[in-house]
């Protein structure tokens, strides 16, 4: 099943919080050079899935192999070795509040390379330019906006030129132009340096712009996966509802159970999905 070009292999991943299974039997692969977009409703477990892929959460059961090694069974030392090869942008940015913007971006370089302070300054400047930020180097994270934090976080994730980038909603909170800049950066890195990227996004414009493959999560499992075209033309009503952002459809809102039944009774949807797995219970 796995080939040489497989970078991440997730098999039968299950994660429970209490008795609620947030991730329920998830399996997929990521290949070298691919940009995989993970989408799905808020709270459906996208960030949790990323955390399992970078080894900062342990699954209830199942396996996650990264660069061909099982990360769930690794010792701290081995995990660190793997992590030097990847960059991660957190949903909140997760910048160190006690350091300035440029110290944050410089941190991985200072800790893991023997570069001189001048070289590091050059690299930091270049990375910040890449994400469209100049002139804010000396501010602390709580003095910059949410969208700026995101971009600093992205610059920091890219500081060591990772071969694998995880980014959790890189474009949420950005204006359309900055979104395009960040998307272009991802595309350029993917094409130019064959960087592999796993991007969580529910910004559909941005998702279709960068993705080479897409996965949609729902109810703890994979609702649909395929190329952007396959997803766009998917006959799965859940997928269509999600990518067009319609309030009515098969994806249940937070209605009470009674209302939920009514809701489905009023708007029955034809079941056409042959190609995609479809886990929604029919009324």
């Amino acid at each position: 099943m796995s080939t040489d070009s497989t970078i991440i292999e997730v098999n039968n991943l299950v994660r429970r919080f209490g008795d609620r299974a947030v991730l329920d039997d998830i399996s997929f692969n990521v290949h070298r050079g691919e940009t995989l977009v993970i989408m799905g409703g808020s709270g459906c477990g996208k960030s949790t899935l990323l955390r399992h892929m970078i080894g900062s959460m342990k699954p209830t059961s199942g396996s996650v192999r990264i660069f061909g090694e099982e990360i769930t069974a690794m010792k701290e030392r081995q995990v660190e070795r793997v992590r030097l090869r990847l960059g991660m942008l957190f949903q909140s940015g997760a910048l160190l509040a006690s350091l300035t913007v440029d110290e944050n971006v410089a941190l991985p370089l200072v800790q893991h390379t023997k570069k001189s302070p001048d070289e590091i300054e050059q690299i930091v400047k270049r990375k910040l330019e890449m994400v469209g930020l100049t002139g804010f180097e000396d501010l602390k994270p709580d003095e910059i906006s949410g969208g700026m934090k995101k971009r600093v976080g992205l610059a920091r994730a890219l500081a060591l030129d990772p071969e694998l980038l995880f980014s959790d909603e890189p474009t949420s909170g950005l204006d359309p132009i900055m979104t395009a800049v960040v998307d272009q950066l991802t595309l350029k890195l993917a094409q130019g340096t064959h960087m592999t990227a796993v991007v969580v996004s529910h910004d559909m414009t941005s998702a279709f712009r960068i993705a080479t493959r897409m996965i949609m999560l729902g109810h703890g499992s994979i609702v649909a996966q395929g190329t952007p075209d396959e997803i766009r033309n998917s006959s799965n009503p859940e997928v269509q509802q999600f990518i067009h952002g319609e309030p009515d459809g098969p994806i249940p809102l937070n209605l009470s159970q009674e209302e939920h039944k009514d809701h489905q009774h009023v708007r029955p949807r034809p079941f056409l999905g042959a190609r995609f797995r479809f886990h929604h219970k029919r009324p």
Partner: protein
Amino acid sequence: MGVLAFCALKRQVKNYLQLNLSLLYWILIAPFTGQFFKIAPIFRQMVFVGVRAAPMVALTAFSVGVTLAMQAAHSLESLGAQMYIPDLVMLTLLREMGPVLIAVIVIGRSGSAVAAELGTMKVSEEIEALEVMAINPVQYLVVPRFLAMMVMLPALTIFGNYIGIVGGWAVCRFALNFNTAGYIMRALESADTWDLYSGMIKSAVFAWIIITISCNAGLNVEGGAEGVGQATTASVVQALLAMLVMNAVLTGIFFFAG
């Protein structure tokens, strides 16, 4: 309920021991594998733990020196032994009051601040971000604080002792008309170096207790801002208790058993 509490306690103890082990690794073993700790962050922490605490330590120590001298004057007067006031001030400060009181100040000031700072970093995902950047939080955050505390608490104790003795001198000189040279002679005669060393050993042990308890509380925070508050309070209470119990044990070993 009882079982749950026991499990929580067991986990806390395990976390605490793990932190101590990894701290020992980063201080004693890692430097020989080429991962020497950086000096700048240690100095930054030393300024915070030590230099900024100096005014408070001075004020406390001076008041304690004055109080001790006044109490001693009161009790020793009836015995006609007022000449022993310097002895009492000196020995009490060096052996007990100096190390303990200054540790109390440092727990309230720096221990709680460290627990709150690391706790906030934990809940805002900064610790996780460090780990994902392959930066060990113990190496990056705990080691500089630990070394700063190990240097600065004994240093503050020496400083506090000195100020306390000045406080005792102020009472003797201005209220009881001792002459200054007499006070100094008497004070130096009463104490031997072991009195000083025992206080230093105590304050080094307290430094260890304070900083490991605060860091451990901060790094294991769960549950948002509320969790940070609880962990901070818990770290102050635990550090105080552990410090006072350890003080009794050390006094027993130094001055009773020997």
